[in-house]
């Protein structure tokens, strides 16, 4: 959404304003128009670094079913810097090419963009899913045979 770019612009502008004016807090709400500013207390004296590093909630949690939604929120923090392989379609996830085979990939497997990492079955068709990124598989985040929705994270990858 173009709106997000506008938001970034606004945040940058606000941070500049905060720094120049020694503000420690700005709080804006549009629904019912709130503005809240806070300047540094005198005893806090000098400068501090850029406070606004991690913007939380950039992607809202995926709502799969009421129960699961909440469970997926907390992973963000500890996995900082990891890449995600997401499902490009809706279907059923399989980690192996056939029931008796070994998994395509496991934690520790090196992948590049062309590596097939799993199969997703949709409408009786087995779709091979490629990694699209390079790195090392850190975690599989869905179970074999599990239904996955569009955009659902399948693997986490530590980039090279």
């Amino acid at each position, binding site marked *: *959404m173009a*709106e997000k770019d506008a938001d970034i612009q606004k945040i940058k502008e606000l941070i500049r304003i905060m720094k120049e004016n020694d503000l420690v807090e700005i709080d804006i709400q*549009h*629904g*019912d*128009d709130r503005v809240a500013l806070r300047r540094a207390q005198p005893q806090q004296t000098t400068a501090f670094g850029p406070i606004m590093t991690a913007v939380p909630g950039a992607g*809202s949690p*995926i*709502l*799969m*079913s*009421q129960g699961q939604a909440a469970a997926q929120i907390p992973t963000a923090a500890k996995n900082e810097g990891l890449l995600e392989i997401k499902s490009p*379609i*809706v*279907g*059923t996830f399989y980690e192996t090419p056939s029931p008796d085979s070994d998994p395509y990939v496991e934690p520790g497997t090196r992948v590049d963009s062309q590596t097939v990492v799993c199969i997703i079955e*949709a*409408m009786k068709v087995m779709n091979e899913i490629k990694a699209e990124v390079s790195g090392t598989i850190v975690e599989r985040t869905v179970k074999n045979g599990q*239904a*996955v*929705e*569009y*955009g*659902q994270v399948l693997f986490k990858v530590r980039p090279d």
Partner: protein
Amino acid sequence: MLSRILVANRGEIALRIIRACREMGIASVAVYSEADRNAPYLRLADEAICIGPADCNQSYLNIPRIISAAEITNVDAIHPGYGFLAENANFAEICSDCGIGFIGPPVEAMKLLGDKVEARKIAKKVKVPIVPGSEGVVPNEAEAMKLANQIGYPIIIKAVAGGGGRGMRVVHNDISLRAAFNAARTEAEAAFGEGAVYIEKLIVEPRHVEVQVMADQEGNVVHFFERDCSIQRRHQKMIEESPCPVIEDRDRQKLADCAIRVIKEAKYVNAATVEFLLDKDNKFYFIEVNTRIQVEHPVTEMVTGHDLIKWQIRIASGQPMKLRQKSIKHQGVAIECRINAEDPANNFSPSPGTITRFIAPGGNGVRVDTHVHQGWTVTPNYDSLIAKLIVHQKTRAEAIATMRRALQEFVIEPIKTTIPACLEILSHNLFVKGKVDTGFVERNL
């Protein structure tokens, strides 16, 4: 009874269907695009599945993704709502192939009535008046010319596969016919991938009147009276009401009988709307059948007390209707206004944005169907319909009064909506008198 239904739609109609499921004790599965991820109505479904990005072609119109979603959630049936895949026979066919119920007509009936030329043939066969015109597709300009002179100008050229006014041309004489015929074909080809057109006599200043019909799998067919949808802008309905304020009971009965004959002949099952034009002498002409539930169905629900979505689900479950025609009563007057995120002061251009203030009307005689709320962001990706405001009163004068006060108390800020346009129409002398036709909005607004 069906026990688990996937709702292959979004917005107010998705919420409408989820509500019906909840009330019937049926589990519902919502699908959504990334643009609708935070829609609060999703939490009212028993499950919600992301099927793709904002672009409809990759989400709400994407058949494989919707079928996959249905398969992984083990639903018995899919309700397509209106728009999107609701009248897509290919989709209905795939559902059938995959063993998933389609809450709508059988594929054959959908195909038959979806073809306007075939639909006209059926109407003619069962002696339902049709607009004079070509027997079927008009292959070339020469044929068109011959026919036009036979039925008399003005005539209208329409796309066989058409809808929404695309591929349509009004022609008043031989000269303009020459230019219009090929233009209509080209436009139809571009819009629907099918250039075939047919010709009808133009009914001057007609009303648009449609009959709500419901048919079960055992061949029982009943009607739920008519709706008058003459208030349109560029062929898009803005305000609908029931009953039609100008027809007598005898004509009303005839109209309904005609609708039922067409539906029976087509071996149709589930909800359908049979559309007619009503000329200045109150003579009516069949035009087409919509093979789905319609946006304006609440108008009929208010005056009959029947929940049409629940009937659709019961019928799709294979239940016989057990509903006698004479037990369906029409009471009072209902009016619906479509509230779109469009700016009436700026040629009804879309007005997306975040709603920072939202106060819905309420009280006696008022029904609101909406998926939006304070904080909702109207994105430019989809249809601009954000709410339907429906009123029900004993008389038309009272219904108009209630609609006016409800529109006046409806607060949606800062985006622009059709509320002021609806209010203007509701206050217009000719509307109040019921003296309108499908050209009313273009002439008066």
